[in-house]
């Protein structure tokens, strides 16, 4: 081991994959359009790249976890997204996995404290 800061770039990307799914499925409990989601996530202290969000929304929609519709009433057309019943079920399952993983890591952290 060195004292150098480890490069966690690619690992962070891997971890973000699952988290972004849960985050988007949670956010879309109310209808939102892409730009408003990016800005809202920023206010939560997180950042999602715009060109990452839209492909993710597309995949979620393809699987039936998110539904979308264009709103043409404003000056500019906006595409609004909302979570579906299947999306809520998926979110619950993902959250359960995430909690289990957290619990396991907490336990190991406590075990490690005793070891040290």
């Amino acid at each position, binding site marked *: 081991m060195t004292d150098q800061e480890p490069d966690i770039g*690619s690992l962070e*990307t891997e971890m*973000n*994959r699952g*988290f*972004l*799914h849960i985050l988007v499925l949670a956010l879309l409990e109310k209808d939102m*359009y*892409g*730009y408003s989601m990016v*800005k809202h996530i920023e206010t939560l202290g*997180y*950042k*999602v*790249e*715009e*060109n*990452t969000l*839209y*492909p*993710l929304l*597309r995949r979620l929609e393809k699987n039936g976890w998110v539904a979308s519709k*264009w709103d043409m009433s404003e000056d*500019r*057309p*906006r*595409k609004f997204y909302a979570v579906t019943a299947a999306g809520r079920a998926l979110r619950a399952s993902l959250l359960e996995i995430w909690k289990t993983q957290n619990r396991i890591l907490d336990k190991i952290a406590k075990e490690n404290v005793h070891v040290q």
Partner: protein
Amino acid sequence: MSNKLEAYLEEISHYLSGRAEREEILSEIRSHILEKAAAEHGGTDDAAVDRAIDAYGPPRRVAERYAEDRPIIAPAYKRYLVRYTSLLFAFHAFLTVVAVVFQKDFVIFPFLFMPRLNVFTALMYLPTAFLADLGVVAVVLYFVTQSGKDVKLPWPKFGVDLDEVKPPKASVWQLVGRIIGAVVMLAITDFALYLFVRYKTIFLYSLHGGDFKPILTPGAGRYVSLIVIAMLAVSTIANLIRIFTRTRWVNVVSNVLSLGLIGLLLGQSFDGLFAMPIAEKALPAIRYSVRFSLLFVAVMIAIELVKDLVRLGHRKLARSGIGGERIPGSDLQNRG
């Protein structure tokens, strides 16, 4: 609307080509960029749109994020690419040798057409054949991968599994062996040259301890002797180079040259070849045994050549990771 925005979307569209939802994707991106330009850069004029586009990212990278996270060829099939290509190429090379020796066309419709080849066109043909074989195998493995099914492909074993052959460790004794080999080859080549300078041929015989007499007629003797001396020289030079470097390219080049020279020998007519008296009945047997021996040596050299090319190709593929290559940028998907 900004021309730059249209050009930007057009370029993304180019990379998304063929996707059914292309128009929908472009509409989403257009909407987002105009939204961002208006909200963060004070309007939808060219300057504001340009800034929003810059923040959105290069077109190719944007398009790549829509690509499915599926490899072009599944990593599990990476070894198959090398294995199948080498088998196919060995078959191809064998047919090439046959086409040169027997001067016949081959058609295995619709997979293969091999015209009559002479030695030099055959040498030009072999690299093309290798690339074609590699392409055919890659296309098959691509379709197998894209089918998404768990296809169990046969795994033919070679006598010696090339993947399991470990490169020999360089030792002093090996170096000594190489030096001895090079010296011996040099001596043989020198002796052959000496014979050639003195007798204009290296094929001689002597009955009951008498004078040396040429086995072959003067013209044929000179021609065949020169080819054999050239083969010895190639082998000598390769052995000398191997003292200083272990690169397989030395083997490849020397084997290609040797194959070409053997091809020239095979092309030699046997009519009126011998200067010494030979029974008419024995001629066909001699002709066939010489041709068979040369063909056998050619096949052995061709096998060595294929092995070296496969090893070189394997190393190159491993370095570039082509077998397990994922669609560019697919690992960036969902990056936050």
